[in-house]
């Protein structure tokens, strides 16, 4: 399914998007600071160096920490899908690391009433095609 807006990789994010195309969710890891980092950056945000920055595969499992519903976006390409759901999920093995998802398959477009978003519920990553050859991570509820 084509997405309204597709990401264009740059040198800092290319490994992340390449991994998505292989069905893997990876984040950066600084072995000196012993911390994961997402979104990807050229250097560790804590120590400021890139010498010890590597990529680490994650479980892809996450918990829902909150949500919003967009009724009037500044992003014109998203207007036809309004209202749409924005959910934030935090990585199960490291809750500091969070991601966007639209939980497309679980809640769809029926957002005219307050959706029953199960805060704390477990989700697992899936990869959907934003455009041919470009996969992006989304999450679905573990039922």
């Amino acid at each position, binding site marked *: 399914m084509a*997405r*309204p*807006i*597709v*990401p*264009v*990789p*740059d040198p800092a*994010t290319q490994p992340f998007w390449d991994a998505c195309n292989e069905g893997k969710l990876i984040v950066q890891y600084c072995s000196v600071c012993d911390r994961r980092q*997402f*979104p990807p950056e050229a250097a560790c*945000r804590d120590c400021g160096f890139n010498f010890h920055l590597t990529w680490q595969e994650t479980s892809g499992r996450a918990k829902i*920490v*909150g*949500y*919003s*519903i*967009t*009724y*009037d*976006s*500044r*992003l*014109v*390409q*998203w207007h036809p*899908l309004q209202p*749409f759901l*924005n959910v*934030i999920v*935090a990585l199960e093995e490291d809750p*500091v*690391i*969070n*991601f*966007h*998802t*639209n939980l497309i398959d679980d809640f769809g477009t029926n957002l005219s009433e307050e959706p029953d978003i199960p*805060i704390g519920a477990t989700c697992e990553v899936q990869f959907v095609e*934003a455009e041919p050859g470009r996969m*992006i991570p989304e999450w679905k509820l573990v039922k």
Partner: protein
Amino acid sequence: MAREVNWERNHDPVGIWNGRGKAALVARGHSPTDRRWDGESLDKSLGAFMMIAVQNALDDAGITIDDVDGIIGSAGGQGNGQPLSDVWGPRPYFDAPYDSEDGLTHVTGQWLRQQMGFKNLRYINNHGDPVWNLIGQASQAIADGRAEVVVVTYPNGNLPGRYHQDPSNQARGPAVWPNTWGWGLSGQGFTFNQYCQKYGTNHDRMAPFVVQERKNGLLWEHSYYAQHEPGEFTEEDYLNGRMIARDLSIFDCDRPVLAAAAYVMVSADRAKDMKQKPVYILDHTESQFSPRSLVQTIDDTEEWTDIQAQRSYNGSGLKPEDIDIFAPYDGFAVFTQYYIEAFGWRGVKRGEAHDFYAGDISLKGPNPLNSGGGNMGTGRMRTVFITDPLEQLQGRAGDRQVTTKAEVAVTHGVLPITAGTVVMSTSPD
């Protein structure tokens, strides 16, 4: 021209500011306030409005252009220093001096110098934003002796069309993370939603605060609403506001306007010669944070605002009970509670802001919060956060004058993630 230095006080421990009481804010000047520039009327361009505001500020101080030796301002016509031309340009230009964006949709100190005939400038800086940081920067420049009489300029523009709309179907750079998933104002909605869940409150409990701000704003002659929509705004109006991004309605978002303001700041020595009573700067502090991960959470928000509030208290040596006038930013109305709770004004603790709003926050009551009306009551010009504390401490706020003591003011903005705080006092000590 003096060389720029790193002027921000943004590393702990900041300690008591060594410029305490050496700079004073003495006068303000405003342009008319319009909803948008029509792209044609040169007497209503941002440059024209900026010149009106500067002249009004000079008149208010009782000085002339020849007394001024510094201009510090935001050239950008819109928040975060983003020139309007980046959003809506390019356009056909006019004859000089309106033959570029400078003067139309942003205004540099160099353009003002040329148009208004400043002859004695030794310091110009256009890189500051937002207005709290400009006041801090000017205070530091004066305390450091780089200038003695500074005009601070703050133009805010708005052109025809919807605000900040992005038509692209591709996302690049940092925009890949929000835009790919349609994330926008939903960020503020999400954080507020987390706040409500954490403290068992809800969006509707914001109503008394926003309604009070509208009332206060109608008493400020430069407010967009006072000039163009002076009707009453009720709790029912607020509660019926259409949602933009849950839990953020149209009435939690400030309305973009076209306006300019200028301030005269001087050294403590020169302050004695001014027409208006000086209001001394006791401290300025700044901060810049990063989310722990992709999305700013309520935990991030509370940590950042706590750090900045404590930094301000450390820099000024004041305590919460010393603050008479408190002006925390409200560009999204949901910001204000984070700031009140961080600063602990009137004893408000985390999670208590909505209870506080339900009490008496009126102008003539014991807790006159945002007595100028904030952006919700005046439009998206931000300058009420400087003008109102100044006028309250000078005792010339007219119908907005609070009945409580007005000797020390704290004004704070803009975002939780990047902030500036200015502490003002009727006394330099």
